[in-house]
């Protein structure tokens, strides 16, 4: 009897441990993956705004006719420009800032895509896959950084955005912009190493940088990380952006679908049976 009970408790305990451990193990798995992502650290203090990275990017992605006007106005990325550098008037004078896909750890576009055309690869880049995309543009609706662009004037349009040169990465090379940057403002590496490096720079030069790494927590963390000498809103960043991931916003809805799909028919059937029987008795009377 007592042995039985003991075995019972043992089994219960083992199950409880398995259940409680099971989840943290999964969670730590995910975080290990995230620290394995590669990314780029962009240091605004080192950037001189030469637009060289724009030319290198166009080169790497086959845009042959590429020209940037002298004294360019404020520009946004579009279907022909995967990255742009703009100048901002700030409290420390004119400062450049490069814009491109942030390659979120948990991208909204990836969660939004119903054909898995937008895809976060294990190495870090968020890529777009031509054979899967149906051109619904839901990724454009979802992206908090407004990055995916659409070729409206094409009969077989593509979604265009920075892919962190995923093809080059496969060959063991590094993204074109980071490879060519003359001032070493762009540093390519493992995301966890980049965060450590960014912290070191802030620590060593507390007067040069604001004490914040944009992208460490924004939108749940991004593969692109920014260091700035001025508050980030002065160089055009959305500083009100949430620090949890965007796919998390739809998680509640998506997890409620299965219960509703299963429970609601049962409830409806119950009501149907209830109203049916009363009407029959009325008819019989």
């Amino acid at each position, binding site marked *: 009897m007592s042995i039985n009970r003991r075995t019972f408790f043992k089994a219960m305990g083992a199950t409880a441990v398995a259940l409680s451990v099971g989840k943290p193990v999964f969670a730590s798995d995910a975080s290990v993956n995230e620290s394995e992502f590669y990314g780029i650290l962009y240091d605004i203090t080192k950037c001189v705004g030469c637009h060289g990275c724009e030319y290198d990017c166009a080169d790497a992605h086959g845009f042959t006719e590429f020209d940037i006007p002298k004294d360019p106005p404020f520009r946004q990325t579009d279907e022909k420009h995967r990255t742009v550098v703009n100048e901002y008037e700030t409290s420390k004078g004119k400062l450049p800032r490069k814009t491109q896909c942030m390659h979120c750890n948990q991208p909204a576009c990836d969660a939004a895509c*119903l054909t898995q055309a937008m895809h976060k690869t294990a190495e870090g880049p968020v890529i777009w896959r031509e054979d899967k995309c149906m*051109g*619904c543009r839901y990724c454009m609706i979802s992206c908090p950084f*407004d990055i995916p662009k659409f*070729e409206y004037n094409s009969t077989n349009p593509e979604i265009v955005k920075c892919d962190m040169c995923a093809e080059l990465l496969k060959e063991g090379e590094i993204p074109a912009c980071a490879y060519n940057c003359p001032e070493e403002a762009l540093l390519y590496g493992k995301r966890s190493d980049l965060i450590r490096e960014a912290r070191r720079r802030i620590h060593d030069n507390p007067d040069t940088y604001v004490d914040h790494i944009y992208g460490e927590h924004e939108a749940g963390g991004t593969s692109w990380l920014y260091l700035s000498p001025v508050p980030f809103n002065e160089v055009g960043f959305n500083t009100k952006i*949430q620090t949890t991931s965007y*796919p998390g*916003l739809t998680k509640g809805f998506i997890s409620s679908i299965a219960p509703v799909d299963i429970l609601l*028919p049962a409830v409806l059937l119950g009501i*149907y049976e209830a109203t049916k029987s009363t009407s029959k008795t009325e008819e019989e009377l």
Partner: protein
Amino acid sequence: MSTNSQPAVLLPNERNFFSFLISELKPKGKIFTPFNIISFPIMMIGLVIIFLRFKNGIGSVTNLTQDVPWGLWIGFDVVTGVAFAGGAYVLVFMVNILNLKKYKPILRITVLNGFLAYLFYSAALLLDLGRPLNVINVVIGNNFGVSSVLFLVGWHFLLYMLALLLEFSPAIAEWMNARKVHKILSGITMGAVIFGITLSVLHQSGIGALFLMAKDKIHPLWYNSYMPLLFVVSSIFAGISMVIFEGSISHKVFSDQLDESSHQSHKNIIVGLAKICTVGMFAYFTLLVLVFIHEKNWEYISTPMGSWFLVEIIGFVVLPMFLFFYGYRHHKITVIKVASIVTLLGIMLNRMNISIICYRWDAAERYIPSWQEFVVTLTIIFIEVWVLRWIVRRMPVLRQSPEWARNSH
């Protein structure tokens, strides 16, 4: 083997069916009605624009921008249209689940309307897809994006169309005089009803959930985490308002299909529907107030967007709610009809606010639909009305079912 040796001739009943179909394809009723004279040229222009869209790309006929990727074709045809088609699931619930026999006379026309609406709105959706052929990826399942709200909406949409077709199918069987098929189809209607309602609740709310990730892009007065709930609640009275509005038109146009008793019962039905709308709108309004307080939105009320928000809430929710209330208390059919039109405009305003007007309201380049987008939208609505009219004139939708069909259950 023996089937191969048989000569390829139609069986007598099949030949009858084809000649029956051909005779039914001929137009019934007058050809040069004002509606036809207006709608036909618009449809022709619309078809040309659709051709140009496939020839030169979406940008050649629309004003869509990189900031606002979903325009009139999604914001009106799909997002608003699905809410308007909500009447089908609400009435099916009332008649088939709650057993409210009073509403049975308008059930078929509502289900047919819902089915056609879904059919043509999905056609509009295909026009808006940049790479429409790849839509097959969603269906055949080599690339299931199961974490995507749009994926779930799409599948619920597709299955619901099937459910609506099954719910309507007995009428098709009655039209073709197919008695055995009618019995089978009537038998499976209940399953279609239950799953149809479930699928509706989920995709109506799913359309609201589509915009959950656009948190920083939709004005805070319209964006909130309760959008799925608000969408499903508003679809109830949006759908019923459409039933009232559409019913008042079809009762004039198709009066030859109706007998005296159904004209009388229709008045009762409208009053009953107005009551449901009042309650539904009150629930919706309460929800809106709760959300407004919960999201601490007072600071926006004094801005221009705040005034626009008040226009929507007071002019197009509170006002029609009182009109519906007054209408059903005093049995004023005209007031109810006006209320239903105001409600429909309000739903249109709400859905367009979320998907277009207050979406990236801060964008440098505002999106204003091109005339081509309007014409294509009208074209889709007109084709739908033409198909609806064709079916109503032929199948027992408004008129009574044939004797044999009524006796079978």
